[in-house]
């Protein structure tokens, strides 16, 4: 994990470890995304350095779950997704789910796959 000075924190960064006070109480959870308000508070609390995800380390690849990705193009995988949903197209909730699944597939293909 990388340490970033309180003065250099930016909104959108994520904590790579929980932020705790001296008594060990958790102020912000691991993975919390920093907002300008949080950053202000962190400075007010007097922290000098904060552990932030992805700083000074290669971000871990999200692992492949579900549809096989390796050696396949997005078009190939998305065809499979479309077929599964092909009988549920009148349902707005499931259409939204399909969009989210395709988004995840696209992300995974760009990181792991491609033929």
């Amino acid at each position, binding site marked *: 994990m990388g340490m970033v000075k309180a003065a250099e924190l930016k909104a959108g960064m994520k904590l790579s470890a929980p932020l705790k006070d001296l008594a060990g109480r958790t102020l912000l959870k691991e993975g919390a995304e920093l907002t300008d308000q949080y950053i202000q508070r962190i400075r007010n609390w007097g922290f000098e350095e904060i552990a932030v995800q992805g700083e000074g380390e290669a971000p871990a690849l*999200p*692992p492949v*779950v*579900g*549809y096989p990705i390796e050696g396949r193009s997005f078009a190939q995988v998305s065809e*499979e*997704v479309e*077929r*599964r*949903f*092909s*009988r*549920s197209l009148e*349902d707005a*909730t*499931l259409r*939204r*789910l*399909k*969009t*989210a*699944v395709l*988004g*995840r597939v696209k992300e995974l293909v760009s990181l792991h796959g491609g033929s």
Partner: protein
Amino acid sequence: MAEAEAVEKMRALIGGVRNLPTLPVIIARLTRMLADPETSVKKVTGLLAEDQALTAKILKLANSAYYGFPGQIASVDHAVVMLGFGGVRDVALSASVIELFRGSPAQAEEMKRLFAPDRLWEHSIATGVACRMLARSRKLADPEEAFVAGLLHDIGKLIMYEHMPVMFLEILQDCRDRARPFVAAEAERDCSHAALGRLLVEQWKLPERISEPVGFHHRLRPRRPTAGVTAAVQFADIFARARGVGWSGDEYLPGLEPEAARILGLDEMDFGRFIEEFDGQMLQASIFMELASGGTKQ
């Protein structure tokens, strides 16, 4: 469809099966103990001491990342403290059920192309994982019990696979050849994997909180106290298929009932985040897949 007839037909069918899979007696005894407010940790550990193999499995699962205390649980006493009585029962139940069906007989070549028990377990584990997430975030039920309900929801299909392979194969072929959902193809033959599953779970003397979600997962009974978990199982099943995890015999998503969507508040749900969390949880649950494929090294 004539639902009552299907249930009756399934009852007759299951009644005629001589060697129906039975759970280790210890699970039923654990369930009974749990219902008793007088039960102590000592009683539970005493019971578990009678089955060392099961104890080993409980410890292995309890120490997996999935339960949140990786490598920290040294003994059954400790597992009871960390997971609670219910948690220990659910872990024991999950391990036992998966093992029960592991030695399923090999079927005809054509069947192998269309169905495999370990792929169904993959589907079922994914359903359990999603169901547990929903139960927890929606506060619908005890999350570990919801996991078990999801894990068992399609167990009726395994009964069909083992005990009525001819009919089961016919249904699978129908799904493939006529591009139909499993539920429609089985209903045409007065069959119901959900009803079958519920009957089996009832025979195992598991609580209604588990048997009803299994029995009603394709058709909610909105008035029942178990409607919340049932809705969670219904959507978790759809989600597992949509995410492409495992195989449950047919390609298309089953229907999502508006009532289930309402109970779960799906209108407001951020599916992108749900998928991200699910993917992470699914990896942690890979320990269950090891059980299903028999690939446990040791």
